């Protein structure tokens, strides 16, 4: 064993101590509160998505003639297929929720401020990737919602001035939903987006490791002497515990509210009530409130503002030091999002 380890170390000149040194960042004490671990939660769920996604890809056949049948096979016939599919679906839902909550936490604690502006932007790109993965994901089932959701989504991109038509063609692989569309969605969902996310996550974590986690102090903590604790093993154990809790929640959700299958996609019949997944309710309602290009451009503008928020915030604070404007804007934004989501959920059209 020793010689083998020695042989290996000659060729891979890192040992456990070095690796630990590299990753064992000091963790601020506020992270002993579990709600500050919302960054680790989407990361864990992302791993669940990769594993269950790879498993599902063993059976999934991305073509209009076979997609629905293969999903049916997974759901009804393959051993534990319904469970794996349920995990994938519910982990996606929880992941989006966790990413959003993580982002809110970062926003309201001001953790995006200098020098962490870039990491906010990377985080925002991760949110966009997650949403796109959600969109392409439910398009793969090839049920009515998949087909018409994809069609509607593609036509929304069409509304973008100048490049819209080009983007739509790129997305659908043609003027309309066709034989090539499903495989495009599949590659986006199963390869392009995950790889992009892995790279973004690496950068995200590296920046955190280099800059350290934002330190917060709470009133009752003020008399505590030490501000940090070890990542190994203390914080890691917390994350492992959270991971197990997530697995239990996912298993229960997958069992109690299993991933169902709607009617097979029918290019000739648009269903009476057509709604995207819940995380697109905001955008969907927004599109109904404003017409075509206005809605798309305004949505794009809001997204862009969110992307650049650290700089906007800095600009506000330069002008008015000590301003709480960002918090109020944040609260307003959250309220609008909740209202639009509830509105969309409550009405049929």
């Amino acid at each position, binding site marked *: *064993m020793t010689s083998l380890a020695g042989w290996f170390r000659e060729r891979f000149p890192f040992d*456990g101590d070095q690796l630990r040194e590299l990753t064992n960042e000091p963790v601020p004490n506020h992270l002993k509160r579990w709600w500050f671990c919302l960054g680790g939660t989407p990361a864990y769920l992302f791993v669940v998505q990769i594993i269950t996604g790879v498993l599902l890809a063993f059976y999934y056949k991305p073509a209009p003639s076979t997609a629905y049948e293969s999903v049916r096979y997974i759901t009804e016939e393959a051993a534990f*297929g319904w469970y794996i599919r349920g995990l994938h679906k519910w982990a996606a839902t929880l992941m989006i929720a966790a990413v959003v909550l993580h982002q809110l936490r970062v926003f309201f604690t001001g953790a995006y401020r200098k020098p962490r502006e870039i990491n906010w932007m990377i985080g925002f790109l991760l949110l966009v990737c997650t949403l796109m993965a959600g969109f392409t994901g439910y398009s793969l089932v090839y049920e009515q919602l998949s087909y018409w959701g994809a069609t509607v989504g593609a036509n929304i991109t069409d509304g973008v001035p100048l490049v819209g038509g080009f983007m739509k063609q790129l997305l659908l692989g043609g003027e309309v939903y066709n034989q090539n569309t499903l495989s495009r969605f599949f590659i986006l969902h199963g390869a392009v987006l995950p790889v992009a996310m892995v790279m973004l996550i690496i950068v995200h974590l590296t920046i955190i490791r280099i800059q350290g986690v934002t330190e917060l102090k709470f009133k009752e903590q003020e008399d505590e002497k030490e501000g940090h604790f070890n990542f190994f093993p203390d914080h890691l154990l917390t994350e492992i515990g959270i991971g197990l809790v997530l697995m239990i929640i996912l298993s229960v959700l997958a069992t109690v509210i299993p991933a169902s299958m709607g*009617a097979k996609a029918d290019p000739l019949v648009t269903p009476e009530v057509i709604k995207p997944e819940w995380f697109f309710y905001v955008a969907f309602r927004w599109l109904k409130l404003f017409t075509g290009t206005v809605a798309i451009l305004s949505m794009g503008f809001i997204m862009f503002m969110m992307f650049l928020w650290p700089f906007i915030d800095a600009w506000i604070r330069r002008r008015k030091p000590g301003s709480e404007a960002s918090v109020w804007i944040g609260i307003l934004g959250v309220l609008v999002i909740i209202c639009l989501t509830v509105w969309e959920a409550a009405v049929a059209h």
Partner: protein
Amino acid sequence: MTDTHVPEEETRPEQPGRRSFLSSASTFLMFGGLAAGYGACAGVAGRFLYPAKPREKAWQFVVQIKKMKVGEALTYQIPGGEGVTVARQGSGETEADFIALSSTCPHLGCQVKWEARNNRFFCPCHNGVFDPSGKGVSGPPGDAEQSLPAYPLKAVNGLLFIEVPMDNFQVDAGSTLKSQTRRT
């Protein structure tokens, strides 16, 4: 490679001197819990990837018994699959009067032929020879004491049925239209 490090890692609290029974027990329990949970999960994943069902078999109609004379043989083709030699060996009307042998040589998978004049099955690939009951008598199958696999037969009301695997090209009984309405 890191066996010397792992326990150290896990038990490196602030004061190494207080490495107690409690600590190692909790570590042991923790790994036990993790192994049980994730191990079972891995088992589920493995079961998911393993082909969903064992080879399903079904009794399929072959021929009306009275249509075959003693000594005659016919080739029954398993749906979407290999040929099976069905021969009538007795004058009775029970399954014991028939034999159904795979025509796939157990040696390397070539198709054997029934040679009536030599009263034997012959595999042209490596000169394998089987007697009428399917037992290997010479050539590679004879040396390895291999036989042609036999399929179960059943005689019901003068009809001969054979039990064959159904996982080749099987389709759902009932119309596709029907199965769609069933689902919705």
